[in-house]
């Protein structure tokens, strides 16, 4: 079990590195799909088949297909050598990112992050009741207000995308059409 976690974690990190070093946007999208699938495998190892299924359906399915559609619609060229050039600004940026990593690792591995089992949902109980069952009940009881707000957010996002991406009407009407 632990060995599978390390294998999929390594795969996720390698594909994430591919995302930031590969030159073509389509290859970057494929690397990101690799990360999403590895993370879905890790979610299964963490007894969360529901989140894993959502990860595959929404991220690897819907969102990445949207990205690929836009990449192909825009007919992007791969980045040139010049734009991949390492300058002082990028080196500083990566140094600051490593600083963030040091901070995060320091906080997350400190004793304060080891909270221990505090909730009432043990792996046994989740297996008995079914994760989907529990999530569905919580969504319609404790989390009903966020649930309604998120549906309004989705509707606004759809309308915003239509308004933004709609073709503007042409300035003059072509003859014969």
């Amino acid at each position, binding site marked *: 079990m632990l060995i599978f976690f390390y294998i999929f974690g390594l795969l996720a990190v390698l594909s*994430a590195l591919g995302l*930031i070093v590969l030159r073509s946007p389509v290859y970057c999208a494929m690397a990101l799909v690799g990360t999403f699938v590895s993370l879905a495998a890790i979610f299964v190892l963490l007894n*969360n088949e529901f989140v894993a299924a959502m990860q595959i359906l929404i991220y690897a399915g819907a969102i990445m297909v949207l990205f690929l559609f836009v990449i192909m619609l*825009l007919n992007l060229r791969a980045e040139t050598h010049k*734009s991949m050039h390492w300058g002082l600004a990028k080196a500083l940026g990566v140094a600051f990112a490593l600083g963030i*990593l040091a901070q995060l*690792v320091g906080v997350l591995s400190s004793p304060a992050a080891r909270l221990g089992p505090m*909730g009432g949902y043990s*792996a046994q109980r989740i297996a008995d009741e079914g994760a989907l069952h529990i999530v569905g009940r919580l969504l319609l009881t404790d989390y009903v207000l966020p649930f309604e707000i998120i549906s309004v957010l989705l509707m606004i996002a759809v309308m915003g995308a239509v308004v933004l*991406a709609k073709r503007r009407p042409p300035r003059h009407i072509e003859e014969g059409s």
Partner: protein
Amino acid sequence: MIPVAHILILSAILFTIGVSGVVIRRNAIVVFMCIELMLNAVNLGFVGFAYGMQSMVGIMFVFFVLVVAAAEAVVGLAIMLEIFRTRDTLNIDEFNLLKW
């Protein structure tokens, strides 16, 4: 039982890779994909805590983060389509209209 600290450190590493991607890449769509990677790393952190604490709160947060990420991707890509139509490029160094 997978140690929770290892899950959280994997999540921190993925988040850092996302941050570095945002800093070093110049293609707006790739920058956007790096933001999705950061959201996903945070999701892994939530699931890791939910696993360690035997709680469902983390799972509910992951659900909401997923929906917000989907909405963000839809609106962001629509904005990028519109920018590409007017500027004919997606290099973020050339989006400097609001700079002074």
